[in-house]
């Protein structure tokens, strides 16, 4: 009786256990720890002091601006660069075979180890790297330019590593558009650019939103790439890891909680602006 009625929910159990024990509970722990103060010879006490410290810290505005500015900027840039590629893939390449070849090629970087991919930036952007060589050969610059270790390096690297997460959801949204909707717009007096904006772009918005979310969340959580290539700009992830490394758990937890809250707020606003539910139906 019980099995017949609720048996199907048993299938949810493995996934649910993993999510609850390894995601939800740790998150709750982080939030609790963020309100604690730990003393060497006393019991920990609950306090708001960590949050007050965070808000009062002179570094906070810079860190927040760096973190969210770089992530949102990368996400927007990636979408801008990824959309045309997805569009060409969906509408201009008619042969499914060629499409699949191109998609497989896009996946190639993921077959290469992360470390190798990271080190590969040195021969590309380094002082004696490919880009500098080209710039010198073309007489655009005389001395090698410093291309590594700046905010822009981070942007380029994040763009490269994340562009697929923008192309794919947009591509999937585009191929779902019924070609007759485009035909209908054309016979209803819409010139090509208005067909694109009113029909194609608006119907691909769910893909754009998903792409944004992927890239935004990916870059927000990545503190190693900024640490390696960004030339010392502070981001929240980096700050969390250094506090955690020095066993200042409560303050690291506070920063983590704030990071999560702001990320959720950004996504909330985004999903409010773009009514994704209406579009997906």
């Amino acid at each position, binding site marked *: 009786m019980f099995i017949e009625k609720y048996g199907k929910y048993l299938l949810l159990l493995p996934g649910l256990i993993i999510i609850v024990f390894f995601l939800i509970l740790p998150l709750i722990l982080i939030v609790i720890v963020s309100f604690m103060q730990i003393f060497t010879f006393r019991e920990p006490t609950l306090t708001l002091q960590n949050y007050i410290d965070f808000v009062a810290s002179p570094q906070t505005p810079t860190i927040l601006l760096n973190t969210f500015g770089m992530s949102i900027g990368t996400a927007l840039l990636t979408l801008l660069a990824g959309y045309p590629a997805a569009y060409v893939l969906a509408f201009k390449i008619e042969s499914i075979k060629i499409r699949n070849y191109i998609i497989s090629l896009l996946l190639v970087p993921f077959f290469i180890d992360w470390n190798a991919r990271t080190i590969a930036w040195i021969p590309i952007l380094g002082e004696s790297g490919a880009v500098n060589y080209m710039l010198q050969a073309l007489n655009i610059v005389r001395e090698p330019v410093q291309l590594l270790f700046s905010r822009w390096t981070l942007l380029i690297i994040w763009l490269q590593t994340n562009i697929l997460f923008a192309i794919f959801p947009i591509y999937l949204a585009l191929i779902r558009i*019924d070609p*007759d*909707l485009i*035909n*209908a*717009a*054309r*016979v*209803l*007096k*819409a*010139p*090509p650019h*208005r067909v694109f904006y*009113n*029909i194609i772009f*608006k*119907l691909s918005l769910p893909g754009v939103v998903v792409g944004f979310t992927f890239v935004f969340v990916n870059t927000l959580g990545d503190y190693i790439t900024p640490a390696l290539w960004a030339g010392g700009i502070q981001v929240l992830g980096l700050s969390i890891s250094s506090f955690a490394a020095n066993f200042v758990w409560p303050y690291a937890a506070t920063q983590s909680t704030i990071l999560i809250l702001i990320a959720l707020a950004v996504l909330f606003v985004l999903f409010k602006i773009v009514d994704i539910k*209406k*579009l997906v*139906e």
Partner: protein
Amino acid sequence: MAGIVEIKRLVKRYKGNVLALKGIDLEIYRDEFFVLMGPSGCGKSTLLKTIAGILDYDDGELYINGKDMKNVPAYKRDISLMLENYALFPHMNVFDNVAFGLRMLDKDEEEIKKDVMETLALLELKGLEKRFPNEISGGQRQRVALARALVIRPSVLLLDEPLSHIDYRLQRRFASLLKDIHRQISGTAFILTTHDQHHGLSLADRMAIMNSGLIEQVGHPEEIYNEPHTLFSARFVGEVNTFMGEIQEVGADSVWVKTDIGYLKSRKPNAADNLVGRRVGYIIRPEKIKISKTGENAENSVKCIFEYLNYFGHYVEAIFRAPHNVRIKSTIPTYNLPNFKVEDEYWLSWSANDARTIIKPSVVEGVDIEDLIYGR
């Protein structure tokens, strides 16, 4: 009178050099309700989409309002198209869907609102403005699609199979709605495609029967029904009894055809000389056949065995077995129905003037007359 749409030797090739349209000549006039009818795959939708500008054509000429349409994009043509699957924009409500074309024409919002509300009222869609396409019924979606195509007041309104995805009652309602609207607005030619001969015949001022990318015959429905040029159009428009035969004798205005069920007399076909010995199709419409117990003194009469009835409400179709197991059907008004007995003998008779001898199986080359009749 020059046609609003003029089509000359129009050719459309699909990939792999498949010919979808093999040289279409057609002229459609202002204020006309024109029906393109044919089996699926005959090219009628391709022709419609070529007129609309969604598809390009490879050869021949197309004029709308006297203007050459080569390389003129769809949005610059004085047409509108209602697509077979309606293609309502899922991200817009009914009002915005209908207003789309007017907004693309950059009309001012006041005027758009007036026109849209007028069209919605005309199609009994008032009160649904704020609903989205997935929140209304199939019949409503269809009327929204029509409203959206109609509201921009094109010179030519193209309707691609508008009657194919709804149930019979809605089809009837929509067909009469179309006819009403066509009468109410002047200066607009309606061109509709259908594979359904009932709607085709009842809606059309004029119609074209299409087959394999060619036009079999153009004319008023009655003209095609009574004087079909080819066996294909005879069999596609209305019910018909077809007998395979050979012309034996030619008189002043009649011919005698030798068929499986005997020598049959019909009116002489208009066209050719050398009629004797030609393999032909002999056709007689079911409602032209008289049924009696004793052989009447008619020009054609065949002794048959009664098999069964197909009941259609206001009329019935009586199926008889003639010699050599040839089936003959006759339609009789229900109020006049005699009491047929299965396996009884009856005489079926008709006058030569009601029968036709058709020489051409089809305008499509290589169609064998026997294959067409016996459906091989």
